[in-house]
């Protein structure tokens, strides 16, 4: 009989489970989370690819055969060849070099925006979870209103107004992530807020700030880290999409989304100049999400 795969602990007794509870099939103890990550093949692949792109972002001048702005008027829209592994674009620039160079921008913007979003979200989440009441209601309504905007619409709106620039993109994405991260942090903090050790901290007269920082925050790092990693993946997604729509950092710096925006009309003629940055985005985003997923499983155990 194919009994559905279960992991209900069979000891549903009244007393506490013995310190080493009856294990589920794949349980990893706390503190061994990273090692557990390395046991998941998909996460390892993700880590490897992410590491590759991070190295690219830092060291691309060493790898790129040409300068990303160098134009070769004799080779416009050239097909892939030994000289240009991925061909050249409509201005004669080597596609490979541009793709490698573009990694730096994406991998500076996305983590910066995520960090901003995480900080803001953690602040909002902790405060609303701890104080509750009408403060929580009001802030959550405002957050909901911001979140209610489909993110691209919000980004579009703000960047159209403020004008595209590196700082603005970071601000927009970061600001847009505050409600999302805030929700996650708030939910995690709510799960902890009613536990007895928080009450015990109140009973020794600890201030709200002290409780939030020393009692609640250390106990929600798991979900926050997972959320942060997921957000980085989505930040890459957002940076690329905004660039594709023409709202990202303005040229001439090489930028995957903008590259696609400029060249997708040539897709019939020279598919590789479009596919190269496309695949770059795809691999980076998927890799980050694989790592995040691996982290989520490791943290949950």
């Amino acid at each position: 009989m194919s009994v559905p795969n279960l992991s209900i602990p069979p000891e549903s007794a009244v007393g506490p489970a013995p310190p080493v509870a009856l294990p589920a099939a794949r349980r990893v103890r706390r503190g061994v989370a990273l090692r557990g990550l390395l046991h998941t093949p998909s996460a390892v692949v993700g880590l490897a690819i992410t590491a590759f792109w991070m190295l690219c972002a830092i060291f691309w001048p060493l790898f790129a055969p040409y300068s990303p702005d160098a134009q070769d008027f004799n080779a416009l829209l050239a097909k892939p060849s030994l000289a240009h592994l991925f061909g050249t674009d409509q201005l004669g620039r080597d596609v490979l070099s541009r793709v490698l160079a573009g990694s730096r921008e994406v991998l500076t913007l996305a983590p910066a925006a995520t960090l901003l979003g995480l900080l803001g979200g953690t602040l909002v989440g902790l405060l609303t979870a701890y104080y509750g009441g009408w403060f929580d209601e009001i802030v959550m309504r405002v957050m909901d209103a911001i979140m209610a905007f489909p993110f691209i619409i919000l980004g579009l709106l703000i960047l159209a107004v403020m004008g595209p620039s590196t700082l603005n993109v970071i601000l927009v994405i970061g600001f847009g992530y505050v409600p999302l991260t805030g929700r996650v942090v708030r939910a995690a903090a709510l799960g902890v807020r009613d536990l007895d050790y928080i009450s015990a901290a109140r009973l020794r007269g600890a201030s709200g700030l002290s409780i939030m920082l020393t009692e609640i925050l250390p106990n929600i790092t798991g979900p926050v880290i997972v959320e942060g990693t997921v957000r980085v993946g989505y930040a890459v997604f957002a940076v690329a999409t905004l660039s594709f729509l023409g709202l990202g950092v303005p040229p001439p710096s090489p930028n995957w989304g903008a590259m696609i925006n400029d060249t997708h009309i040539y897709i019939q003629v020279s598919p590789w100049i479009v596919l190269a940055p496309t695949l770059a985005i795809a691999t980076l985003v998927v890799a980050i999400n694989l790592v995040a997923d691996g982290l989520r499983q490791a943290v949950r155990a």
Partner: protein
Amino acid sequence: MARFLARRLGLIALTLWLMSIAVFVITEVLPGNVAQTILGHSATPEAVAALQHQLGLDAPPPVLYVRWITGFVSGNWGDSPSLQTPISSLIPGRLFNSLVLAVAALIVIMPLSIAFGVLAALRQDRFVDRIISITGLSLMAVPEFVSGIILLSIFGIWLHWLPTSSVAAGGDPLTSPQYLVLPVLALGIVFFGYVARMMRASTIAVLGSAYTRTAMLKGLPLRLVLRRHVLRNALVPTITVVMSSIGYLVGGLVVVENLFSYPGIGGLLLTAGLSHDVPLLEDCVMIIAVIYMASNLAADLLYAYLNPQIRYSQA
């Protein structure tokens, strides 16, 4: 249940109102303004100021807000300065096209992703599950234009199965469905990944629940247990989460319409944004917001109907 719905309705109204304020505040910070857009960049500041006064645009912001929002609600949408046409003639057609795309994506993707999610849950941790999980995760992560281009390359360019632009010469998407295939797929792929993973998680949770155990230990046939006890309870949270994340679809619309040159409201929005066309921008965003909130309300209604704990309040 009535109280629940009334509360949700009130919240939605409040959110829409807050959104309208946000939209207005953001757009009014615009350095470029409507008068400038009409007259062009070469206009002198005096001419711009004169036109602004003539259009009544130098009134204080709260007045402008009230004027705009009452106009919006009553259907007087004014003209688009950059396109020089009434906004109310621009939006409905485009909106319809976008809705066709979105609804098609939903109809095609939802059943597939639910089925795959359940399959993955039933074969948890085995090969099939790993494939589905990772595929779902990957699809979820990839921006729509990226998958759009990949699909275009494979099906349009390499295999020549599908046309590479999205509309036939006539311009009405419904008459030639093959033009819809690629945009619908590109739009739906992200959704597929998301729904499949949600459904998988939800089904796994239900499979491990005490009431599934009860059903199995009652000696019910497995198929019956899956249908009546597992699926019924796993679907409800998934469906409602899915419906309220239709916002992803809306964002994806902007991108997909741009990529495939599809005449939808997303494209209109982008144009308005890039050309600083404030009235068009504001109205487009608000319309999208209203549609989005309506879908949220529908999701809430569905949830209230399906969840007995809300439908029948505590006795």
